[in-house]
């Protein structure tokens, strides 16, 4: 009867929370509106697979193979040869000032090498400051180039065979070594959307009780800190689940994002991630005195995590200290998990360490929240 924890009391808190949620339009807006809006906003950026990108050609000779290669590249629709540069330096300058997105260099000995069967090379430098723009152009490259070469060689079957095996398309991504591909973004977006809505909604939910004075009543009635915490945390797990479903379905339907990994593994990691976020939000709400403060604290956490997690900038492109700092955000680990599972089909062993990290966050946040929770109004 006098148990410290009672499922009946937890049930009372849960029912109350769900009713309030149902009546609160803001919650609904954040639950469905924010994910959809963000997906669509980012989606346009992802979806625009730009064609006819300005390109500079540095061709050292004017033989049939070079011509075949240039026309093949033009045929893809991605490359538009606006400039014929006389030297490497000139092409370099064009890219630096943003006049071209690509520089295609076909060396002088290209034809010679093709005929000798001596691994011919072409070099494509891409301005990867806007990597999603360049990625489509790059991904079609290797196949196109090989086919063009085959056609140009036509009857010289033996040489063609060699060339097919040996043609090297060297791609240099300039300014941005990792080069986020379009598919990289949506799994990341899942993490970002969850982080934004989950942390903020939970942080505000408890401070709202303090602000409206209902906390005093709640504390005066027999409910333990653990019950109050779970009563707030569990409903938001459900909200998180709805958001995950929205984002994944939209990712599939709107953008055709490939999904190669295990759905169970992904969903279990999402669960751990959302739990850590909700508990973080709860911890914030034990510190904030008003909803305004809760909001500010959330953003204080949100912005650096966005910058340092690898969502905005490639993690490996960051300086060492920033990488270390990035490790303290659940988002960092979640991004690695989703990208690995969704895009690379990673199994549990491959992401176990990252899931372990997320569990550490859950434990730390839950502990802090319970310690910080004020059982009294002092």
């Amino acid at each position: 009867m006098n148990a410290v924890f009672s499922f009946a009391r937890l049930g009372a808190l849960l029912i109350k929370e769900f009713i309030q949620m149902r009546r609160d339009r803001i919650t609904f807006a954040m639950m469905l509106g924010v994910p959809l809006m963000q997906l669509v906003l980012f989606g346009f950026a992802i979806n625009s697979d730009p064609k006819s990108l300005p390109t500079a050609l540095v061709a050292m000779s004017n033989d049939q193979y070079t011509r075949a290669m240039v026309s093949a590249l033009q045929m893809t629709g991605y490359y538009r040869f606006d400039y014929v540069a006389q030297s490497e330096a000139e092409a370099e300058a064009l890219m630096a000032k943003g006049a071209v997105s690509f520089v295609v260099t076909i060396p002088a000995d290209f034809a010679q090498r093709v005929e000798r069967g001596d691994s011919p090379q072409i070099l494509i430098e891409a301005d990867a400051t806007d990597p999603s723009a360049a990625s489509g152009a790059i991904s079609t490259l290797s196949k196109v180039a090989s086919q063009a070469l085959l056609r140009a060689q036509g009857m010289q079957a033996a040489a063609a065979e060699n060339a097919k095996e040996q043609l090297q398309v060297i791609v240099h991504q300039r300014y941005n070594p990792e080069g986020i591909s379009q598919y990289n973004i949506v799994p990341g977006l899942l993490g970002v959307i969850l982080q934004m809505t989950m942390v903020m909604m939970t942080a505000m939910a408890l401070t709202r009780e303090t602000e409206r004075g209902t906390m005093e009543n709640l504390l005066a009635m027999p409910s333990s800190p653990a019950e109050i915490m779970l009563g707030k945390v569990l409903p938001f797990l459900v909200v998180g689940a709805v958001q995950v479903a929205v984002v994944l379905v939209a990712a599939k339907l709107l953008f055709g994002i490939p999904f190669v990994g295990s759905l169970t593994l992904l969903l279990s990691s999402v669960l751990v991630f959302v739990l850590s976020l909700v508990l973080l939000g709860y911890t914030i709400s034990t510190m904030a005195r008003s909803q305004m403060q809760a909001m500010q604290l959330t953003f204080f956490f949100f912005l650096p995590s966005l910058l340092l997690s690898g969502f905005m900038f490639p993690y490996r492109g960051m300086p060492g200290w920033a990488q270390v700092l990035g490790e303290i955000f659940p988002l960092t680990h979640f991004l690695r998990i989703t990208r690995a599972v969704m895009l690379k089909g990673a199994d549990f062993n491959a992401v176990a360490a990252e899931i372990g990290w997320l569990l550490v966050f859950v434990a730390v946040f839950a502990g802090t929240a319970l310690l910080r929770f004020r059982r009294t109004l002092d």
Partner: protein
Amino acid sequence: MNVIDVHGLVKRFGDKTVVDHVTMTVAEGEIVGFLGPNGSGKTTTIRIMCGLLTPDEGEGTVLGFNIRTDSLRIKREVGYMTQKFSFYEDLTIGENLEFVARLYRLKPVSEHVARTLEELGLTSRRDQLAGTLSGGWKQRLALAACIMHKPKLLLLDEPTAGVDPKARREFWDEIHRLASGGLTVLVSTHYMDEAERCHRIGYISYGKMLASGTVEEVVRNAGLTTFVLQGPRLDRVADALQGSPGVDQVAPFGATLHVVGSDKKKLEAALADVEKEHKGVTVNPGETSLEDVFIQFMSGSKDNMAKDSKG
């Protein structure tokens, strides 16, 4: 055994002592009024008693449970009605009551809620959002929610502030009915007429308990003398008396003027010539009212504060 038995309670916020060595006992079945001006520490004292605040000094028991260590048990058996309406305005009346019933694990929930709604006369409005209720109805809802789990002690913090006189009358009838059933009630209030409906009262000012006892005891112990003046042009008499030695209060009451002082001899001296100087004015000894006493307390404690700030 006393239901409330606390002594030497001290609570400070920063360097401000909000509750200053408050001692209070309340016996079973008693209705005790807790009076004092705004900001005198009533709410803080009540919060300490139900375990919502930890006192900086002092000890005590509520329903036999230690206020420092047993607050969970106290919460189960106390009904606390907060000064500000603190149920959920975005829940309906019925949902609020169901929430409370579940939290106290009352079974079956629906029966408890239905009975409470019936007693309140709110059955037809059970699906109305609590936030849309008027002040008087909110207060009745809050009271009903507080007593649903049959507490042994009710702590009511200014329950009738902003409620019309008829609703106040009904509220107090209800309190007396509950007390006759054995419930103990501590109620803070501003209203003198409500104080008179309590078995005993305590008066707190700037955190200090200045007086306690029955209304008669408090009035008698204040040691005030009151004269009632009647006649024409009392306003001029009032102006003349204001500030004379021995006259602490001059207050019009309807067609009469109450003149109050703590030193009977000086007061009589001040009034000696009134009947001669103002034609038709009569001076008669009168009853000191609770209000006179409280006004006296208030001006007295302001003096205390002035001394404090100087020293």
